């Protein structure tokens, strides 16, 4: 999986960085999961825990930055190694943002939890979060396995998240128009939805970075695809 260098310490430094990214990824996944669970169950103490734990990600990102710079300075990496290290820095900053977004969802839990909201309000958010989490998990799995042939599929799913977000947006607007008392919680939920949608965007960014690290090429801008599930309209004759 990794090339072997004459200096063994160099290999150790590179694996240390990738391990650190994986640990960050695990924390980020956990934070997103917990923040949405806190929102849906109005669990204020879980939300507090998310807010505290976000510091772990910040710290990990700083450490990865420092270590990466040190490796570059000391080993003067070339080609694949250089891409690997630059990729590490970029993925770390994406994951740190994911943590911030989860924290921001957690902060809104306190306000939303004040009045008991009907469960139907959260179903959309839950489904959206599930999509974003799947996206994040698959991207990080690809980082582990380096099998980039699956990665374009990961990016395609981002469209699904966007469509879901648009639909959720409309739904929340309807609730606000129905009853002005809904405006406060719905506005917060709207921001939560936006945050989760952005988590999906960061996952896509990470996918692009991994593709670049592994292949040395930028991911093709947008491949023509057959399955634009929610966008494409049907031809008139009704055939597939």
């Amino acid at each position, binding site marked *: *999986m990794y090339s072997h260098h004459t200096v063994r310490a160099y290999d150790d430094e590179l*694996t240390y960085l*990738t*391990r650190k*990214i*994986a*640990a960050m*990824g*695990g*924390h980020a*996944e*956990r934070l997103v*999961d917990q923040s949405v669970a806190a929102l849906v169950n109005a669990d204020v103490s879980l939300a507090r825990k998310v807010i505290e734990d976000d510091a772990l990600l910040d710290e990990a990102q700083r450490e990865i930055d420092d270590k990466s710079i040190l490796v570059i300075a000391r080993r003067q990496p070339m080609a694949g190694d250089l891409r690997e290290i630059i990729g590490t820095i970029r993925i770390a900053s994406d994951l740190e943002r994911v943590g911030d977004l989860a924290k921001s969802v957690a902060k809104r839990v306190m306000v939303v939890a004040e009045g008991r909201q*009907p*469960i*139907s309000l959260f*179903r*959309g958010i839950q*489904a959206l979060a*599930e999509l974003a*989490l*799947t996206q994040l*998990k698959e991207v*990080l*799995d690809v*980082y*582990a*396995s380096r*099998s980039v042939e699956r990665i374009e599929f990961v990016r395609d799913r981002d469209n*699904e998240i966007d*469509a*879901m977000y*648009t*639909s*959720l947006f*409309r*739904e929340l607007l309807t609730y606000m128009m129905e009853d002005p008392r809904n405006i406060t919680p719905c506005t917060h939920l709207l921001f939560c939805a936006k945050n989760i949608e952005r988590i999906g965007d960061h996952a896509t960014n990470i996918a692009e970075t991994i593709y670049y690290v592994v292949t040395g090429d930028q991911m093709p801008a947008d491949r023509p695809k*057959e*399955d634009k*599930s*929610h966008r*494409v*309209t*049907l031809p*008139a004759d*009704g055939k*597939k």
Partner: protein
Amino acid sequence: MSAASRDNGRGRSARLFAHRFRQNRWMLAAGVAAVLAVFFALPQWPWVAACVIAALFVVAALAPSRTADQRSVEAEEVSSTSGLIGLSSENLAAAVTDPLIVFDGAGAVVHANAAATAAFGALHPGILLLLKFRAPEMQDMIQAVLFGHATARQTDYSERVPIERVFRVTVSAVGRGTGFYVMVFKDQSETRRIDRMRADFIANASHELRTPLASISGFVETLRGPARDDAKARDQFLQIMQNQTARMARLIDDLLSLSRLEMKPFLKPGAKVNLRGVVESVIDSLTPLAKDSGVVIERDFGDDIPAVLGDRDELFQVFENLVENACKYGQSGGRVIVSMAGPETNAERETIVTIRDFGPGIPEEHIPRVTERFYRIDGELSRTQKGTGLGLAIVKHILTRHKAHLTIRSKLGDGAAFTVHFPSE
């Protein structure tokens, strides 16, 4: 005794003596050297020295190398290990039904058994476990074993997506000093699912049953009050109440079937289903309903539809729900087309089944969300069509378990197409 066996016996004792001499050669040499040293120091009795050396040789030749006790212990060891000699550890791992991963001192996967691949996707040798299992508690455990010199650890590991699973994971070293470790996952999802099912069922049921219940109690009140003597109204109200109770019954059925699905662990691997047969029987069973709604079901089956991995009853429910929906909500179109195509027809090499209706279609903003529980585009229409808001949620859940997925295309006024994609193996 024949000459041959005597020869044989002589040969064997010669080999035995040679072996004993070789085994005792250092002791013998030391003894001889000591005797010679004594002889050179006091050279009065050379024959004594010669006798002592001869005696040493005799003892070396005759003394048994091991005691009888030692010999029996060794024989026992040989017989107890011989059962496992020639047993490949790969076969042993494959025979374990729980996911099992063998990894080395660097944390890289050495071997993952079939159950592990089924549960966590391909785990090629060389993948670092720390990259694959990123949950903080797993990280702690693996690091404790790799770097902290712990020999065995246990933790709980849960996965949320794509399907919620909970495992109790143990890591232990293989033998002593082999540098290999084995990680075994025990599936604990069932107990967790039962808890969750109870909570979910109560939350959903209380919410969804309240509406019909409120309506029934309202009508009962009216029947006892103002409409007490109005025969015509009474009849009408009783009809409505009957519809509402039927709705509650359907709702409970659907909720139970969804909860049951969520309870079941992963599909049993290996079972294959003839897709064409399933779809045919769904169409046959729904033809009466289609006739009642004035809808004709047309078939457009491609050739060579492969069998797919899965559970027949569950897939039957998927297509039943989809075709039934198409007949109900696409009634105005007058026809429903069920088409099937093999993996040769598309780039993704998927087997696809499409159910296409020509009804009013689904507004774009609702499409991504129709598979959510109790999500209704038009509450009134859904109620008149005896919908519970769970049909597509059930479809989605079953397909996720089959690693298949559903796509929906629609244009307002032009019907909708629900397509099920089965991955090729």
